[in-house]
């Protein structure tokens, strides 16, 4: 287990390094003059030179690279070109929003997806199964931002026009301020991400369950006289969850993408919207910081999933 853990840790560090380096290469080899951009349109050559020196852009690339990595190793993401605010501060401010969005929708999609998959598999070829499969296909084909817009239109706007103000539109209330309002404001964003992703999980759980239900040990369990319920949830679902867990590890990356569009659609002040806004202002350190941070988050999440996986299924450790 220790060896497995060390190998995985080394691998994670390697991935983060590769990501950080690619980000550096993209930003420092693409021909654009960062200093000129920051100095503004009317800046004189001297001003641009001053800015260049201050940002350390006049040093050789390898020196910049080393200092870039050095800062990263200390957890310093640099500062905004425009406001000089440390990117760490910006990221720390936005993080709770994105984390709330991501965690809530991950829980929701796992529950909905696995639940629907189990129901569909145990009632194979029934009308319920067909309905679930059909609905899943629809959501599976749906872009997150479109679902967000539709939810916004039907569940917020139409209901609002009808005098029912249950789902508020985009805004954010911190969990620590008011947990109830926090959840209320996040319901629609959660659903936008969760429904799209849950569709994959219901398909995956359904086929994994169908395979497992054919196994001999399930027949044995039935022969022992266990209830169907116990067989489904205690015996079958447990091993059917293995592919679900691996898929979950993969999807944590796309979760960040889902968060970006959902934040834009619902106007949530999270990391994703920050990055999109930073593109319009060409505030590169913010974009770089968020990119590297999300890579770290994905790698850490994958590490956790891998460990969980290794605990569930000892064979994984040998790989």
């Amino acid at each position, binding site marked *: 287990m220790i060896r497995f853990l060390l190998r995985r840790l080394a691998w994670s560090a390697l991935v983060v390094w590769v990501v950080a380096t690619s980000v550096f290469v993209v930003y420092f080899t693409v021909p654009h003059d960062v200093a000129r951009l920051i100095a503004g349109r009317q800046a004189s050559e001297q001003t641009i030179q001053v800015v260049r020196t201050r940002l350390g852009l006049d040093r050789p690339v390898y020196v910049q690279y080393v200092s870039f990595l050095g800062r990263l190793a200390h957890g310093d993401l640099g500062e905004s070109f425009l406001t000089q605010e440390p990117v760490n501060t910006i990221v720390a401010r936005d993080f709770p929003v994105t984390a709330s969005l991501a965690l809530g929708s991950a829980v929701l999609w796992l529950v909905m997806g696995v639940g629907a998959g189990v129901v569909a598999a145990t009632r194979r070829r029934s009308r319920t199964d067909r309905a679930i499969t059909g609905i899943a296909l629809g959501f599976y084909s749906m872009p997150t931002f479109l679902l967000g817009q539709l939810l916004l239109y039907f569940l917020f706007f139409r209901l609002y026009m009808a005098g029912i103000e249950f789902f508020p539109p985009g805004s954010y209330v911190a969990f620590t301020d008011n947990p109830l309002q926090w959840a209320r404001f996040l319901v629609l964003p959660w659903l936008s991400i969760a429904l799209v992703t849950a569709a994959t999980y219901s398909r995956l759980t359904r086929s994994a369950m169908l395979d497992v239900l054919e196994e001999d040990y399930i027949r044995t369990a039935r022969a022992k006289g266990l209830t169907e319920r116990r067989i489904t949830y205690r015996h079958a679902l447990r091993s059917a969850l293995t592919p679900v867990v691996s898929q979950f590890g993969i999807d944590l990356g796309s979760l960040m993408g889902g968060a970006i*569009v959902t934040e834009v659609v619902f106007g949530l002040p999270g990391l994703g919207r920050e*990055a999109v806004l930073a*593109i319009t202002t060409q505030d590169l350190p913010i974009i770089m910081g968020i990119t590297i941070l999300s890579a770290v988050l994905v790698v850490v999440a994958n590490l956790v999933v891998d460990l969980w996986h290794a605990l569930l299924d000892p064979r994984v450790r040998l790989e």
Partner: protein
Amino acid sequence: MTTAGHAAIRSRGPWELAFERLRRDRAAIAAATALVVVVLVAVLAPAIAKAVGHGPGEQFLDVGLSPSGIPVGPSRAFLLGTDGLGRDVLVRIAYGTRVSLLVGVLASALAVLVGTVVGIAAGWYGGTADRALSRTMDVFLALPFLVFALALVAVVGPSLTISVTVIAFFSWASVGRVVRAQALSIRELEYVQAALTLGAGHARIMFIEILPNVTASVIVYATLLIPGAIVAEATLSFLGLSVVPPTPSWGNMLADAMAYYKVAWWFVLFPGAALLLTTVAFNVLGDSVRDALDPKHDPSMAVSAEEAR
């Protein structure tokens, strides 16, 4: 002499059988029909524009907007209503179809090409090469596509080429993983060993011996990649990272619609419906192609297998 009796039995290859199954699948026929319509709309976009007399970028500030500057709803003049600048939504959707199909098909083709080559190589060579390639694919699968697309576009600027490249860059790994798994088992088959004994080189074994046997799953995968690529392009467009306005794409139309959804439902619903129809059709067709090529997945076959027990 039994030749007369045998003549009636025609030998049918796996492709022919698959095509037969596909033809009898009603969902597949419906999806294929829908896709033919989508392709026709894309091809005939200029003709549609001409027929209704509105160009894709033409702004009808007088008749296309209400006196208070709000888009007008579906009417005889504008069948699917207008957008915030008084442009014809129908014509713009038709032109947007071109972008979606072009990016969807090109990006998938590129991803399939790279994924197949890498997958076969990993499966055939095995050992260290396989470990390195598999690990690389894992990284590509786990990295947040949209965040990276965002970071890249922020520097190089949005364009159609960038969209195709970025989407292909982040989808080849899923093809590679599937192809690798297959190549890994095919490589142990006797005919491959025979080819090796006969002195076939690496390239010959990979592309003449193994490739034909992974084609079926590659086709299935390609069909299922296209809707994903279309969604990805629409998402990039929605964020302003792909096709630059005034060129219409479904994604940038939906982005514009964000400002008007309270007063102009048609502006959200029609481009949204076009997008959803296309992706659902591709997904249904992809599922059907998979069922047709792999009889184990064929629902009717599964029933008979169950009844046989």
